[in-house]
């Protein structure tokens, strides 16, 4: 089981994972408050300033799965994987314009989740349930995939095992995660994010300096990748589209995948939790300026797909490309450091995702459906329990070898999550849409997006529309149908009732915001 372990790497790896676990427990004492209150446990008391939220939201959005998955697509087919760059360029104008308004109204009305806001705004319980249900459904597979990212690096350390023993390190890491999440709440990932992001930046800077030095510069790296793709395409008989540039048939999928993913990203419960935990609307604006630093990092990580080709890494599963590149280039101990950065990069979002899902379940599903009179203390208790259930569920997913299923669900999750965009964002700016109209739009988008993704062989992300020659990302097709239905129904049966006034969307007065 541990006969082939790389000891220096493993020792560094275990050391860092233990260090952040300790931080996770210590975090309970940070900005001390009553953690039996859901606002404190699940939202950090809305007290995080721009610096902390930069680490927290960055660590939340750019996950371990991203660090493994994006370069693996680049390794497999090249330029197409870089859709992640337009995607992450698109989200920041949205963050800048819409989220300070959402934050302000959430602060005034004590909303903790997107579904809270939707209920307050439209007074429609079905719409609240729709938003909550979609969020939880899309989050579950996302957490499971964080584990997959973590397992890849544990494998690369040389850990071998059969059956359940193969997942032992992962299970231990998650048991510790569950303990400190339930104790410290959102403070734990916020504190760990400092260490994690610093480590990831060190790893990335080392890679972009050292790798080209060893491999003969960036020109040589791109050339090596280009040669590898030419061979791949030739062996496939020209059927595979792969290369340093997009093939003509990849252009529309590339653009629509970027747009559709951008609609979805900030709608996830973990994004909402991260963003609503900040101290002021201004902290959000500052982050819309500062967070793109993470996008640069993501772009550089994506390039590692090409570096792997240049370093002569040949792996059957493209997801192994980055771990094997690390082993090929760096000394063992730094390999362990990099792997720890990726593994901790899984723990931070996994913690925030389970907290986001738990907040949503407690407030928007359990309370309205089962016990409307739930006391504030029991709310926090229930949320801690749900976070635990979500984490155990994610581990079971991986233990049962349902990784393929998790990947399919994750693909669908992006399509589904985009469908709550109109319900959550439109209401911040206009009163033209009614709750029922938005609900019907959501249902249409969910059904259409799922239907388009289904083929007898597998779930697919893109679909040719109206028999045209180009394929469009299903999330985009579905959201267009969603908005059309919502607009038509809202025009037919307008509902001008509005529970929020314009003043409630405005920034809080400076003194009060800091309080």
């Amino acid at each position, binding site marked *: 089981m541990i006969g082939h372990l790389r000891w220096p790497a493993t020792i560094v790896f275990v050391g860092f994972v233990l260090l952040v676990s300790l931080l996770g427990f210590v975090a309970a004492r940070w900005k001390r408050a009553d953690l039996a209150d859901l606002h404190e446990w699940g939202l950090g008391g809305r007290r995080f300033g721009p610096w902390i939220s930069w680490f927290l939201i960055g660590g939340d959005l750019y996950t371990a799965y991203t660090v493994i998955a994006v370069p693996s697509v680049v390794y497999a087919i090249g330029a197409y994987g*870089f859709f992640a760059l337009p995607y992450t360029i698109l989200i920041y*104008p949205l963050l800048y314009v819409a989220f300070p308004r959402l934050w302000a109204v959430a602060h005034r009305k004590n909303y903790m989740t997107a579904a809270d806001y939707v209920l307050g705004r439209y007074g429609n319980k079905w719409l609240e349930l729709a938003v909550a249900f979609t969020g939880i459904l899309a989050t579950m597979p996302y957490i499971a995939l964080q584990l997959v990212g973590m397992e890849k690096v544990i494998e690369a350390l040389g850990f071998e095992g059969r059956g359940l023993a193969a997942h032992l390190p992962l299970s231990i890491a998650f048991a510790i995660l569950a303990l400190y999440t339930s104790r410290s709440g959102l403070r734990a990932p916020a504190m760990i994010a400092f260490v994690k992001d610093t480590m990831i930046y060190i790893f990335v800077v080392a890679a972009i300096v050292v790798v080209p030095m060893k491999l003969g510069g960036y020109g040589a790296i791109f050339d090596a990748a280009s040669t590898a793709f030419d061979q791949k395409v030739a062996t496939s008989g020209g059927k595979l589209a792969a290369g340093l*540039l*997009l093939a003509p048939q990849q*252009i529309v999928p590339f653009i629509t995948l970027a747009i559709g993913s951008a609609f979805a990203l900030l709608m996830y419960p973990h994004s909402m939790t991260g963003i609503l935990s900040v101290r002021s609307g201004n902290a959000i604006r500052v982050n819309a*300026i500062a967070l*793109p630093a993470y*996008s640069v990092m993501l*772009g550089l990580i994506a390039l590692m797909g090409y570096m792997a080709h240049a370093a002569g890494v040949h792996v059957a599963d493209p997801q192994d490309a980055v771990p094997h590149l690390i082993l090929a280039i760096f000394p063992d101990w730094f390999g362990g450091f990099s792997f720890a950065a990726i593994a901790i990069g899984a723990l931070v979002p996994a913690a925030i995702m389970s907290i986001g899902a738990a907040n949503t379940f407690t407030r928007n599903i359990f309370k309205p459906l089962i016990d409307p009179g739930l006391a504030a203390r029991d709310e926090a208790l229930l949320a801690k329990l749900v976070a635990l259930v979500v984490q155990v569920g994610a581990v079971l997913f991986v233990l049962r070898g349902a990784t393929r299923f998790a990947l399919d669900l994750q693909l669908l999750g992006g399509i589904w999550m985009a469908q709550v965009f109109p319900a959550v964002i439109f209401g911040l700016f206009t009163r033209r849409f009614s709750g029922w109209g938005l609900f019907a739009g959501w249902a249409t988008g969910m059904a259409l997006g799922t239907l388009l993704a289904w083929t007898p062989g597998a779930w697919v992300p893109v679909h040719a529309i109206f028999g045209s020659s180009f394929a469009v990302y299903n999330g985009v097709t579905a959201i267009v149908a969603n908005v059309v239905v919502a607009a038509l129904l809202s025009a037919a049966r307008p509902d001008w009732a509005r529970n929020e006034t314009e003043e409630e969307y405005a920034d809080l007065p400076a003194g009060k915001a800091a309080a």
Partner: protein
Amino acid sequence: MKYLLLILPAAVSLCVPFYNMMEPRLFGFPFFYWLLLLLIPISSVLTFLVYKGEKR
């Protein structure tokens, strides 16, 4: 005008046929890659300008 500045880099990043090419290269990076990587700090700077403008 303000929103135009915010959305400009995003709009450029979606005009894929315009930058889906190898030349001109920069430090060995094909045009496709260095343009996308450059758009990110540009979007930061433009957002910063809008932010400063709003504060005044």
